[in-house]
């Protein structure tokens, strides 16, 4: 099993979510985060005063998937999140040791 952490642009969330649910993903965790990559923040000027904008709002999506589905999911996220402009985000893949469903105690891929 692998955990996918994807940081994407906020307005792409609906598209990514739809794509993933169509592929049969059973669950995901979504958080509102702030960050920067090469896109970097910038300085705003408003009525003569300067304001530095350091961190840009992004959405982080976390899903855990079985190994056989990994490539498909990564491609799907990329396709639906991409705009071609800088700041599109990144996808990270992390190995997962175990997964347990709290209510029933099931483990492994069945518990996903």
């Amino acid at each position: 099993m692998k955990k996918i952490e994807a940081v994407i642009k906020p307005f792409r969330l609906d598209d990514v979510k739809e794509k993933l649910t169509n592929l049969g993903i059973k669950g995901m965790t979504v958080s509102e985060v702030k960050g920067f990559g090469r896109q970097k923040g910038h300085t705003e000027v408003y009525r003569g005063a300067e304001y530095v904008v350091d961190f840009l709002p992004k959405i982080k999506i976390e899903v855990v998937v079985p190994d056989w589905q990994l490539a498909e999911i990564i491609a799907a996220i990329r396709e639906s999140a991409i705009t071609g402009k800088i700041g599109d985000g990144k996808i990270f893949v992390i190995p997962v040791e175990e997964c347990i469903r709290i209510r029933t105690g099931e483990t492994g891929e069945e518990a996903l």
Partner: protein
Amino acid sequence: MLGARTYSSAFREALANSFDGSPAAEEGWALVAVGGLGRGEISFASDIDLLFLYRKRIPPFLPDLVHHLVYGLWDSGFEVGHATASVSMIRNMVQSDFSILTNYLESRLITGDAEFFDEWKRSFLKLFGNPNRRRFLQNLIAYRASRLRQYGESPYLLEPNVKDGVGGLRDLHTIRWAGIVYLHDPSLDAMLTNQWLTPVEKLWLEQSYDFLWRVRLQLHQSGERRQDRLIFPDQEQISSHMGCMAGTGSSSVEAFMRLYYRNTSRVRRTTSFFLERLEESQRRFRGFRLRRRIMPGPFLLEGKHLHIMEPEWIKKNPPLLMQFFWQAMRSKAHFHHNAGRIIRENLGSFGDRERRNPDVVNQFFDILLGQDSFRVLKTMLETAFLQAFIPEFAAVRYRVQNDVYHVYTVDEHLLRTVFELHQIEAGVADGEEPLKSAGKLISSDERRMLYLAALLHDIGKGQGTDHSIRGAVMAREIAARMGLNDIQKDLLCFLIEHHLILAETALKRDLMDEKPVVRCAVTIKDRQRLLMLYMLTVADSLATGTEAWNSWKASLLRELFFKVDRLLLRADLEPEDTEARAAQAQEKVLALVPDPAAKEGLTAWMERLSFRYLLSQDPNDILKHYGMEKELAQCPVRFKAEPNEGGMWQTTVVTRDRPGLFALITGVLWARGLSILSADIYTRETGVVCDILRVERVPDPLHSEELWNKVETDLIRALADSSYLDEILQNRRRPSVLDLKCQPRKEDRVVIDEEASDFYTLIEVYTWDRPGVLHKITNALFKLEINIQLAKIATPGAQVVDIFYVTDLSGEKIMNLDVHERIREKLLECLSVDSCVE
């Protein structure tokens, strides 16, 4: 409620009967039901509260009996709370813990020594002599206040607790407890007789008591776990059992919850008034005078409360009702429960004439804009006076919005939006721009409309789809009634109709893309309105619930605000009705296509086109371009040429974007000896490019067909093989001497502008017209790794004015001053060489 009572008495009976013989006959002990069982109402999942009472020393049989009974009940699945205590122990316990006291206030004998029990009960109640009573009442009020504070928090509002929540069963119990302590009688009849409740209130309480019990019983019956909270799945189930049906604007759950809130709201208010009355009647020194002041209108300010002294005057002069609230706001007074009653009773005399009365309207605005407005508006709402003044408000009273974001009902939410606006202006909400200086930047007239918009922005809810537009229509009527002028009316309706535009754009659109920002700008049209919409958006979000707003969302919204503000500041935006004209243009194009399936594809394609393109092109041309783009599936490039007047031709090239494309096209045209007069290039989101170039000096106008075929072939070959372009440039047709224009030459100029657009860097090139100059420039840009997104080429007279909207290869603005220098250098160098050989 009958169910609860029946169950309770049946339970007690069963318990009593389970004792056969001996212990029951003993003296000096009693098995007492307390808590809900003692009150005579329990539910299927309630706790069973028992008290094993004895006189002084614990009887020898009691421990075993307790053990047996309690374990037996536990094993049978009941939740049992029990205490084993002597009379004096009880006295100590209740004096130290208020909740234990309330638990024991209502008790019934199950079995044991009846005389002993009666004796105990009497002495227990005697504990409440006058001073103890007062202390009890104070404790009761404080206890209730802390309960309301806890359960008034947002999570408890959407899924309320039937027992402990605001206006829940506990409030009704509170009244009973007070009744027991003061009157030794918990019944509502006794309250009525003592004038602590009015007949209407008694009726309300009885109805609500019944309603809440029905809900609670259903909840315990259907739920697996024992709990008193109306969680969403339970709401659904119960709403259908209670016979609530879906209406035009709401589901059956919403209808049920609306009913629920109406009941709990009544209970809460009535309980508050009850406690107030009780407190008053118990005031120690009746003769003790509070500070009294007579206020204009027949009002009396006594201490903190504002009374209406001559209620009969209201019928003759209904505007007094508004004046009462106005005075209350100015004096920061609280509302006496009597005043509330008087207002309710006199609502009938407040009619259309009063709604249109300018003095009344002015006072209303004073209330709305005053610091304390939330409290006053709330009372206006609860006494139904607000609905009398603005009848449209009645439709949103208690209206539920069935999702996790909207914690408050619509009416409450609207009032809270007004509150949040006050907070924003007071500088509480946000220390950052643009909110920080917002309050100072809007005029007082604008401020009035802003607050009125806050109060009315969701008034269109519950009437089907798109409440923004509906709300704006309703607001127009309300504004007319209030006697607002046209400017005010327009502003009010604008704010309401578009109160969602900023939030929706910021959260759902790509802010790096020009179009959504431009769309906002053309809709909003000026900076003042933008600022007001922004304030309204923040207040609206804060008033929706704690989940709906956080600094993350705030930063997205702020980004959009700054971008739109800058666009409006520059005022180089297309005039007024850009959005409308673009829509019109789209309509015209669609009209050219009869087939509906084709229309759909066409509409989707046009959705993604820029305003600039839509407004500058003839509908026939747009359709032509659409056709050309579709053909790209088969061919790498599509080319068309049409004659214009004056020996000029309009050529159109449609192909996929790639670095250096424009340089390539200009090169191909130049190689054939054509002179480019003007060019408009449009790069689509999809990466398709549509370049429209106007050319002249067509060598043989009579046989142009040949030329264009050659050009098309050249394009295809050059796209496939870059060296081909070099080849044809080498062999290009030298311009004839006759063509050379002899002009005085101005100096070449290159201006690079980062301010003009949030999305592109602008490069402006001023030079003199000569063959191939455009190709030189675009080629130089290509070599500098600059991507041309949009170009406006013009040759007024002999001058060349080329404006390029560019980005670097990753789509970002250039921003770097060193790069600017390099660009300027390279371009000027290139322009100064007369004959440019690659």
